[in-house]
């Protein structure tokens, strides 16, 4: 899984499939709050697309797609988006995570829709970042990642 699979067919098919997987993942994220789907599922699919690259193309070559160092920052940004949306809703009136108070100048029902959508996007990025960082940590060679 760390070294490259020296197989042209796998390489080409991966290169074709990864964009489709990611587009489908975004579809799942954006339709999550009123039909099957949502943040976690979309995030897992996004992470899956990166795993496919890591497994087929080997660690070094797939680093240009998604670098190892990006895993935890994506996770942090995702959770901050989630928590931040709730906090913004709290600052502008209302309780934590009461999206109708978001200051976008929208009708309350649409404000809640937008709020949930923002939260789902945050969750998706958080899940993607953390799943990829779990995979990278488990497949790291000994001594890697210990410098910090």
């Amino acid at each position, binding site marked *: 899984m760390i070294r490259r699979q020296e197989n042209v067919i796998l390489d080409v098919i991966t290169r074709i499939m990864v964009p489709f997987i990611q587009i489908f993942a975004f579809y799942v994220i954006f339709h999550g709050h009123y039909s*099957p789907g949502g943040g976690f599922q979309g995030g897992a699919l996004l992470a899956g697309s990166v795993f496919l690259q890591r497994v087929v193309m080997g660690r070094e070559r797939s680093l240009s797609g998604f670098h190892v160092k990006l895993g935890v920052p994506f996770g942090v940004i995702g959770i901050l988006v989630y928590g931040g949306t709730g906090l913004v809703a709290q600052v502008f009136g209302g309780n934590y995570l009461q999206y109708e108070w978001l200051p976008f100048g929208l009708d309350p029902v649409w404000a809640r829709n937008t709020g949930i959508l923002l939260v789902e996007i945050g969750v998706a990025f958080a899940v993607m970042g953390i799943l990829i960082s*779990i995979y990278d940590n*488990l497949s790291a060679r000994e001594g890697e990642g210990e410098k910090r």
Partner: protein
Amino acid sequence: MNDIFTTLIAERWAYLLTVVMIIIGLHAMMMKRNLVKKLIGMNIFQGAIILLFIVHAYKFGASVPVHDAVLGDHPEAYMNPIPHGLMLTAIVVSVATTGVALALLTLIYRRFGTIDEIELLQKLREEP
């Protein structure tokens, strides 16, 4: 006798399946020597609980819990979506726990060279 058979197996087979999965998961967690197999047993056990919740969300003749213009607003026409939402959260928790467990297993394997429970307990008992 026929009555028990009908009630227990024909009508409630989903719960029997849950019980079977719980037993398999517990057996794996307790009896298997390899730590990875224990982890798999834990996942099976959590899957059984997820099954228990989801089975209860089903209603006879109901459709998926997505609002449909044709079916209208009657709650009887849709399956209960709350257990589905709860179980999504439970799956996420299970994934996170499995991630931590795998990281611990990797660390154990690198330090001790084995992931067999009996050998590890021996190493635990000997003086440092």
